[in-house]
């Protein structure tokens, strides 16, 4: 509480500057591109995350999630486009403790104890939270004296989380934070993050788990092939799954021809099998049966996973068509 009061006093002298900061987005990516040795990892991502917003990055491996996160944190530099964290560079946001992160690649020193690791990290920040407090929030207060090398993968992940809580960040970036943590642990983890909402940090997290994105995010951004293929509330994303999937056997089908059919949102071809995502399954089935030689027509409800697969496939197909030589 004391530092808040100090903050008030300091604010009165630099109110203008700080007011300006308050209106800024937590994160703003503008048309960000990144290639690695000719392979395009991120292919034009633009995104604004508001303070306090919880955003899930959902996508398969190779979708560009980790590269995008690295660029948000200044660990990688975009080939083109810009990244701003609270209106400044990622480095200055890190130096001031406004952004912190839990990454998959960050290693820990095995010969230190859990508490020592957090104390060391705390010593690097200007105004950190108390060590015991972050250990408690991460649920590892009872492991304080354990050697890091003796901790399980899940416990090490909680330790990384405790370290990320130290600066009391305004933006928390998490790359697959609950990998290796069981279901109960995952619940506790998210309870710890959302603990002091409202007024909690903005959170951007990458995940493979659709249910995790659905349960904890205000907004889901679906990535595939280095692009954003969908961006909306979990409800809107689920609407993508609210139509029907129509499958049929149709030799020699034309992808473009089917995509042009009224009501068809996405087309996949697998050999002679066509898979169509649509809002109106009856109409598409009727069309297939009456106007084509399609056989074995099935209409079913897609899961969110199906919608996800359809969207990401569609994007990858688009990309393959655009540049046939590209390895993906």
């Amino acid at each position, binding site marked *: 509480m004391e530092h808040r009061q100090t903050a008030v006093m300091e604010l009165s002298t630099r109110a203008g500057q700080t007011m300006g900061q308050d209106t800024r987005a937590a994160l703003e990516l503008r048309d960000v591109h990144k290639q690695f040795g000719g392979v395009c990892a991120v292919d034009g991502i633009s995104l604004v995350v508001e303070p306090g917003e919880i955003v899930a990055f959902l996508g398969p491996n190779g979708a560009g999630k980790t590269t995008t996160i690295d660029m948000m*944190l200044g660990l990688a530099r975009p080939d083109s486009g810009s990244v701003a964290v609270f209106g400044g560079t990622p480095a200055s946001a890190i130096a001031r403790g406004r952004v912190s992160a839990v990454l998959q690649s960050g290693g820990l020193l095995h010969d230190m104890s859990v508490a020592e690791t957090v104390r060391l990290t705390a010593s690097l920040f200007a105004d950190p939270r108390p060590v015991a407090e972050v250990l408690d929030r991460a649920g590892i207060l009872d492991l304080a004296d354990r050697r890091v090398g003796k901790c399980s993968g899940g416990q090490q992940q909680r330790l990384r989380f405790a370290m990320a809580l130290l600066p009391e960040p305004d933006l928390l970036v998490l790359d697959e934070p609950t990998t290796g943590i069981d279901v109960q642990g995952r619940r506790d983890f998210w309870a710890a993050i959302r603990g002091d909402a409202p007024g909690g940090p903005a959170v951007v997290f990458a995940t493979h788990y659709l249910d995790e994105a659905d349960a904890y995010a205000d907004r889901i951004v679906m990535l595939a092939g280095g692009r954003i293929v969908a961006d909306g509330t979990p409800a809107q994303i689920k609407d993508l799954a609210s139509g029907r999937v129509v499958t049929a056997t149709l030799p020699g089908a034309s992808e473009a021809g089917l995509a042009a059919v009224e009501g068809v949102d996405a087309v996949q071809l697998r050999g002679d099998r066509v898979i169509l995502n649509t809002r109106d399954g009856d109409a598409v089935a009727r069309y297939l049966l009456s106007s084509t030689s399609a056989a074995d027509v099935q209409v079913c409800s897609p899961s969110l996973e199906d919608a996800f697969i359809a969207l990401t496939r569609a994007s990858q197909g688009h990309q393959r068509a655009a540049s046939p030589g590209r390895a993906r």
Partner: protein
Amino acid sequence: MNTSLAGLLHRVRKVPRLGGLSLTFLGLELRRTLRNRSTIFFTLMMPPIFFLIFGTAAHYRTTTVGRGNATAYILVSMAVYGAMLATTSGGAMVAVERALGWSRQLALTPLRPLTYIALKMLVAMTLGLLAVLVVFAVGAGSGAQMDGIVWVESALMAWAGSAVFAAFGLFMGYLLPSENLMQVLGPVLALLAFAGGLFIPLSGGLFATVAAFTPAYGLASIARAPLTGDGLTVRAAANLLIWCAIFTGGAAALFRRDTRRT
């Protein structure tokens, strides 16, 4: 109140002083280093044991060398050897930390890369100081004799000169990021110790000619100068300065490659 105020006002965010360097940081790093049993054995125990084995024979105690006895000469040699091992292993810690991905974890904190290097050098030099002090303490109790001021001068020279090996360890740490770097460097340091005449006096021939150009030889020369009364030679000083420039320059170049954002 906490929450409501936080909702209304943002904290004024500060950047840490000294780029993140603090006594807490240094203390934790030292504790961690001194917890490593092989570091303790090789850098703090082996050199004084070698001294006791090689340097304390009766005739060494009675043989005069410059402003002390032969036991003191071997004492200084072993202090140099200990300082070499200690500072190299201190600098080489960056290899382990890079191999484990800890440097990447540190990149998420306000710690500046150059502060990190400064800290590693401080840890290396502290370890070097401990190594010198241990050998000198054992020597003082085991028959080494030097004029009073020579004790201080030769300890200071052995310690300060070992900075060249801290730079060497750092350079190797950036060159070979491996958890087992010291296992590679141990034999290299032993060979260098022979080149510095730390175990047996150099007796001419090709090895002695080549040895004179090694950093261990330069370090041994300046550390023995107060005892032998030879004084600081330009040659020894140039040797150390040139090697220091090579290792520091090499480490700086590799460090820049390492921290360049891709």
